[in-house]
């Protein structure tokens, strides 16, 4: 019997399993979901019962922990040198790396959907407790824009992880970028212009608000290119040519 090529779906299943079969991966995923729930509940206790506001609070734990999960996924093979085994079983390294990128993005979408669902009963409970009317309506574009933004935040983790192949450095860049850009934005006109085009936190705002105009879309595209598309492509190219040993 002649073996056939490894199908991509199989690589995807293997890489999804690797995401959760170590303690660090499992702790991160469970914490992200757990803290998302805590965030939704805490917001329900303290603010007006608006469904999307409650769900949106989950962005803080999800946006902090899921990029870290993404970084650990793409850098793990180097830290433990398991690349030696993985790329011997599938020498077409680009396929393996593509299979590594998709599960963290899917987990991000799942995390957002979970937050939206968890916010449903919490909104009803909060409305009953506070004795006020709950607000359920929200523009669908806002919900989709929010999920898309969260996916981009995780995508930045993939980009930094693949480009640097060094988990601590990638994590620092991802987590410090918000603070860093707010400083840059205050460094006069030039700083403000730079931040307006390159700060993912700023450029994703119109997407989150569901009002992505031509100019905003261009800014978003540029920043996504710089922080996600270019680093992911450069990382995959570099790893494909790298000597592994």
């Amino acid at each position, binding site marked *: 019997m*002649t*073996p*056939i*090529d*490894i199908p991509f779906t*199989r*690589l995807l*299943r*293997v890489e999804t*399993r*690797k995401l959760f*079969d*170590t*303690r*660090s991966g499992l702790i991160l995923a469970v914490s992200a979901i757990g803290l998302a729930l805590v965030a939704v509940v805490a917001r329900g206790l303290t603010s007006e019962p608006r469904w999307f506001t409650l769900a949106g609070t989950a962005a803080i734990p999800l946006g902090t922990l899921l990029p870290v999960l993404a970084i650990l996924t793409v850098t*793990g093979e180097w830290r*433990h*040198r*398991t*690349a*030696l*085994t993985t*790329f*011997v*079983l*599938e*020498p*077409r390294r680009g396929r393996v790396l593509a299979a590594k990128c998709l599960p963290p993005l899917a987990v991000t979408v799942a995390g957002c959907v979970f937050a939206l669902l968890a916010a449903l009963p919490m909104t009803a409970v909060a409305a009953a407790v506070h004795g006020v009317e709950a607000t359920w309506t929200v523009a669908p574009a806002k919900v989709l824009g929010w999920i898309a933004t969260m996916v981009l935040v995780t995508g930045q983790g993939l980009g930094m992880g693949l480009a640097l192949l060094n988990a601590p450095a990638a994590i620092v860049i991802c987590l410090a970028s918000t603070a860093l850009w707010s400083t840059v934005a205050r460094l006069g006109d030039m700083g403000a212009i730079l931040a307006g085009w390159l700060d993912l936190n700023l450029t994703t705002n119109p997407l989150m608000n569901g009002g992505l105009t031509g100019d905003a879309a261009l800014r978003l595209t540029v920043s996504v290119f710089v922080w996600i598309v270019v680093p992911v492509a450069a990382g995959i190219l570099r790893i494909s040519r790298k*000597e*592994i*040993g």
Partner: protein
Amino acid sequence: MIEFHCVSKAYKGVKALDEVSFTVEAGSVTGFLGPNGAGKSTALRILTGLSRPTSGSATVFGRPYAELACPGRRVGTLLDAGALHPGRSGREVLTLGAMMLGLPRSRVEESQELVGLTGKEGRRAVGGYSLGMRQRLGIAHALLGRPEALILDEPANGLDPQGIQWMRGLLRSLADSGCAVLLSSHLLHEVEQVADQIVMIGRGRVLARGTVAEFARDGGLERTFLELTAQADRSAA
């Protein structure tokens, strides 16, 4: 079956491999013997497509390894028993391998049994494994796909005398059933016991080739090895 054809590899002008050529036939064990730093691991990484030769070519079944369809099904490889995620269990490592190769889960138990890892040991995290256990796990991983060719880098390192004897028997029976086995080692005695053919390498060059019997006749394996490697060192210096 496994063929090195004039393989050279230079790192920043320094030659790690210099026109290495040899063949491993089906049904035989070839010992790839050389002191530490001779270029054994470099050659095996080139053979498995992890590294590219500067010139020459290495093939398995007549083709570069990376061009084989699902190469792990036909070629079993163990390059470094230490390259494992410490948080995964031995069983999980084998399960991931079996999944990747599209093998039934029953192969996980079979391979584990074949190398003598108990069920309890298999459930433990590999971070707590001894080097000998890691070698057994790595060999189990290499054997998952019932390969026709086997590439092992220093598999005897860390094995106790019983383990070494077990491995000798295993490699012999695999070769007798038609497998082409290439194993590297710096342990003369180990290679002498199991190999049919020996390729001696030093400073990136093939110093001598022949059957174990030929080496024994021409002054003994150890003496030849020490003389040739000393010569190679002198000419490099």
